[in-house]
């Protein structure tokens, strides 16, 4: 680094009351007391009591959010005949930046396509919910639902296999049609 690139910053000049700290200290204490008063006495906190109150139930100006734009856990869509729509093209697992999709392709038992996924596992703990798989899918087989509050007691049960992803479709198709 050249000396000419070094910018020497001067400290801002303090005004006379500021040099004695105490006035500014008292102003700061006043600000925090105002906040405490607002929360304790007037009940004006900014808290959403999560399991009882949910952001999707609140208007946006009160801190709510639109669930329609939220990216939650995945589902594997079925076609009209109830077969898995996926054609095992590996586009989603290629596009996935977190590399959380593992597909094993097999020859399709049906006439209208060549391949289908024999196994389709998504590690929901690795997933970063970016939605790239959804974008990449040529047949709209993989989609992100709006469900965000999933829990598990082990890492193993957070790896969703094909059966589970299809079950997620069955449970969410009414609320979120394809």
């Amino acid at each position, binding site marked *: *680094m050249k*000396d000419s690139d*070094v910018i*020497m910053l001067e*400290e801002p000049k303090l005004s006379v009351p500021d*040099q*004695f700290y105490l006035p500014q*200290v008292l102003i*700061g*204490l006043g*600000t*925090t*007391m105002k*906040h*405490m008063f*607002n*929360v*304790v006495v007037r009940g*004006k*906190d*900014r*808290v959403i009591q999560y399991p009882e109150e949910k952001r999707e139930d609140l208007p946006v100006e009160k801190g709510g959010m639109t669930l329609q734009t939220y990216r939650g856990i995945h589902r594997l869509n079925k076609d009209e005949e109830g077969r898995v729509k996926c054609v095992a093209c590996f586009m989603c697992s290629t596009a996935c930046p977190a590399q959380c999709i593992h597909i094993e392709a097999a020859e399709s038992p049906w006439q209208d396509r060549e391949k289908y996924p024999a196994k389709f596992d998504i590690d929901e703990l690795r997933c970063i919910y970016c939605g790239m798989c959804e974008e990449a899918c040529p047949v709209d087989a993989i989609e992100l639902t709006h469900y965000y509050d999933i829990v598990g007691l082990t890492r193993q049960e957070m790896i969703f296999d094909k059966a589970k992803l299809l079950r997620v479709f069955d449970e969410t198709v009414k609320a979120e049609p394809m």
Partner: protein
Amino acid sequence: MIDWLLAHIPPWLIILLVAHFAILGTVAYLILLERKVASWVQDRLGPNRVGLGFGIIPVLKDFHFWGFGQPLADGLKFILKEDYRPKNVDRVLFTLAPGFMILVIIISIAVLPWGGTMESSRTITIPTSTSDITVYAQQQLPYGSTLIGSPMLVDGTADQYTMTYRYVFQIATLNIGVLYILAVLSLSVYGVVIGGWASNNKYSFLGGLRATANMISYEIPLGLAVLCIVLMYGSLDLNTIVVRQCHNWGHFLPAWNVFCQPLAFVMFLVCIHAEANRAPFDMAEAEQELVGGYHTEYSAMRFALFFLAEYAGMITTSAVCVALFFGGWDLPGLRGPASNPGLSYSLILCIVRALVFFAKTIAIIFVFMWVRWSLPRFRFDQLMMLAWRALIPISLLLLAMTAVVVYVFHGESYDGLHGPMALTLFGANLAMTLLILVGSRFVPPAPATNRKLIVAGSRFRVTPLPAGLN
């Protein structure tokens, strides 16, 4: 029941047990209060889920009680966590440090004046063969109490005597209580330093170093501020200092020192913040710079002991602050006879006084928390500058000023300050404040060391420094 207890157990033992467990229990709830205050300042509500039912107990589990179960759950967590000790630490000192810290803080509660002097009487049987009944009666009294007058023979009996005795409602009646507190509290930094050294970690070590420098600097103005009060009353006994504040100035204003020595109170308040290692002076555990400071390597119960010690230290220092500046347990209406306001004839009054004392202490602790969540941490050089360039000269001046006032009103102060002297002190305090405000304009500015980091002169590029900066 209470009579039986008082007759067989020395009163200080009961007070000790109650005070000990009350303070340790309060410490747990102070942590909850700290989190609540932090939340309120930030427009949040704070922990409010863990009730007293812990999700198991049938009826209670449906109520949250504003998070009152949180401290218990926290304590349980600390006990159950892995007590990890890293390799290459000094095993003995590493284990010793938290224990030492909590020990020092707990023994410092011994001289807190909880409720003045208790007067009580009791009827005992003194064998007729006893030669000196006063000495015999003294031996029958609770330990630490003094006999008032001589035992009186109960009418119609040969060996039943009634005796009146007094004991001070505190754990240890020490006539150098203030000195004891100052001495013991300054030992608490050893826990920090030993912990920091034994951890074999550079951040812990730096935390210990900072704590030492902090303590050395702020002990001086702390001691000087206390000396101002000691000088006014001529006593080092906390109970005496409290009792002498138990009257009114002009019929309505309690004769508390905060009203006649406001400047000393501000000094003291600032210094006990530093003493208790609390923000904005918490250099020893500056999270943003030193990971966790001296307790970086500590976990589980050992860390909890450091944590407890910090809050117990707050209780002690706040209690001393209340005793010195806010009249201790004094409230108009709780005082005894005018000749000796500390005297009380009922145990209930003593307990109420102890509760008042405690409530005032909690109020001061609330100020601690309020300050912590309002002010940013001082930089280290600012910390030293505040102590050595501001607090120490001001408190020295204040001490000299108090000495002059005490000399002028000599003798009068030793049974409590009277109106004229208090007014003079208050006026002198105001004059001092003005003097400081004006005088500090003429003090030359501090050297700019540590203010600017010059890339040009650093080890990466050794060039001569610009003119004017050396």
